[in-house]
Structures are given as structure tokens and as C-alpha cells.
């Protein structure tokens, strides 16, 4: 068989009919897939919408609640007031007597007026007023 004969056979094959059964099967299969695809698309959209809704709901439910602005510092301060002043005034009181004698010594030649103020609530706090 030479090349021309081969090409002639090819040309004959060009017009060969396609089995009608095959055509029908292809047509049916395509139609079925399209129908399935159409219903599948509906389900896909519904699933997507549902997933989005669940996501939004989850975000809303688990979002940290917006707490009112409190003044947390004040409440503890009020509660700790009896304790806190104890240390601070003590430091002041300890220093005050040390410093106080010096002017007293200097002022010793002249009789100086000394006013002593005591805090009845806190006996450790003593205020001395000189002259």
C-alpha cells in the first residue's frame, strides 16, 4: 500500500457514519450530567450559604463581650487605704524626727516655740512645727 492509497482510504473513512447508538448514548449521558450538575449547583450554593451563616453565628457568639469601662484602680485603693498609708507615713515620720533635732540644736540658744501635732489615728505620725 503506497501513500496515495493510504490517503484515499483516509478520505473514504472521512464519510463513514457514526453508530447511531453511540450518538444516543453520548446525548443521554451529557443530558444526565447536566441535570445532575444543575441540582448539584443548587446544593453547592445552599451549602455555601449555610457555611457562611454558621461562620457569622460563631463569630457573634464567641466574640469577647464589650465590658463597661470600670475604674479598677479606685476600688482596690479604697480597700487598701488602711494598709497603704501605713508604710508611706512611717517613712516620712522616721525622717522627720532625724531632721527635726538639727534645727532644734541650732535654735537651742534662743527659746523656740515648738508645736507638736500628733495624729490620733496614727500615733507614729508626729508633726513638729518650730517657730
Amino acid at each position, binding site marked *: 500500500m503506497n501513500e496515495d492509497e493510504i490517503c484515499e482510504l483516509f478520505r*473514504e473513512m*472521512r464519510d463513514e457514519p*457514526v453508530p447511531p447508538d*453511540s450518538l444516543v*448514548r453520548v*446525548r443521554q449521558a*451529557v443530558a444526565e*450530567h*447536566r441535570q445532575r450538575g444543575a441540582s448539584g449547583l443548587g446544593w453547592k450554593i445552599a451549602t455555601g450559604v449555610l457555611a457562611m451563616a454558621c461562620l457569622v453565628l460563631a463569630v457573634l457568639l464567641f466574640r469577647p463581650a464589650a465590658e463597661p469601662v470600670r475604674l479598677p484602680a479606685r476600688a482596690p485603693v479604697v480597700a487598701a487605704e488602711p494598709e497603704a498609708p501605713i508604710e508611706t507615713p512611717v517613712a516620712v515620720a522616721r525622717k522627720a524626727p532625724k531632721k527635726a533635732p538639727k534645727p532644734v540644736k541650732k535654735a537651742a540658744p534662743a527659746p523656740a516655740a515648738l508645736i507638736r501635732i500628733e495624729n490620733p489615728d496614727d500615733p507614729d505620725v508626729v508633726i513638729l512645727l518650730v517657730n
Partner: protein
Amino acid sequence: MTGVPCAVSDSFDQVVHQREAQVLRTAYRMLGNWADAEDVAQEVFLRLHRHGLGFANEAACGAWLYRVTVNLCIDRSRRTRATGELPELPSNEASAEASAIREQQKRRLMAALEALPPRERAAVILREIEGLSSPEVAAILGCTDGTVRSQVSSALTRLRGLLKRGEV
């Protein structure tokens, strides 16, 4: 390019009706059996459905269908070849009747076609059987005009050799 219109206004069903023979025939030439050709044709039309009918003209639609058909067939051929399944070639028995001889020659030619590399096979089928021009085949196969001519020439030489040696 031969083929029926595939205008934008055509409905999908119309296009399937008009082009199913072209797609099935091409797939059959490429694969050598109608069952596989039907599977490929079905996949081609489902892809057309997903793609839509927004082609610039009927030639573009026809070329698109040929391209998808050939690509699917080449993929399928590779898978078949990978499994080591080679086509069964008919014997070279003489028949008394001329038409029977002709039919047998066609069957041998088809068997020889299956022995070709997939791209050469596609080039021969599109140009020699489907009657497309070399530039049209080049556009479908995504290669140059010269490559198509070279592939067809090489394929015809191989076919002649296969048929002469009686390997098919």
C-alpha cells in the same frame, strides 16, 4: 474548516446535536474503539457546557472541540500505553470480495494508526481524515504549520512501513 455552525445564539443542545458526530468520529479514530470514544465525547460536551458558547465564530467553536477531543484522547492513550495495553492488530488475511478487502484495509490502517505516537496520530487524523488544513491543525495542536507537515509526513512514512511489513 469543515463543520456545522456553532454560533453564539445556538443553544447547547443544538451544538451537541450538530457536533456530536465530529467529536465521536475523531475520538474513535484516535482511540480505536467506540466505547472509549463515547466516554471522551461525553467529557468534551460537558467541558463545552462548563466553558459556555461564547466563541467568536463557528470556526473557533469547531477548533475548540477538536482541541479538547484530541487532548483528552492523547491523555487516554498515554494511560492505556502506560498499562502496557497495545492495540490488537488484525491479520492480513485476503478476502474474496473487494469490499471486504477494502474494509480489511481500513481496519489495518486504523490499527496502524494506533501504533503511531499520539500527536502524529492526531495530526494525520485531523488533516487527512477530517480534512482540515495544516494551519488549522497547527492551531488545534498548538504547534507550527511546519511541525504539522513534518508530523503528517513522518506518520505517513511510518504507516506505509507498518503496512508493507505486514505488522498490522
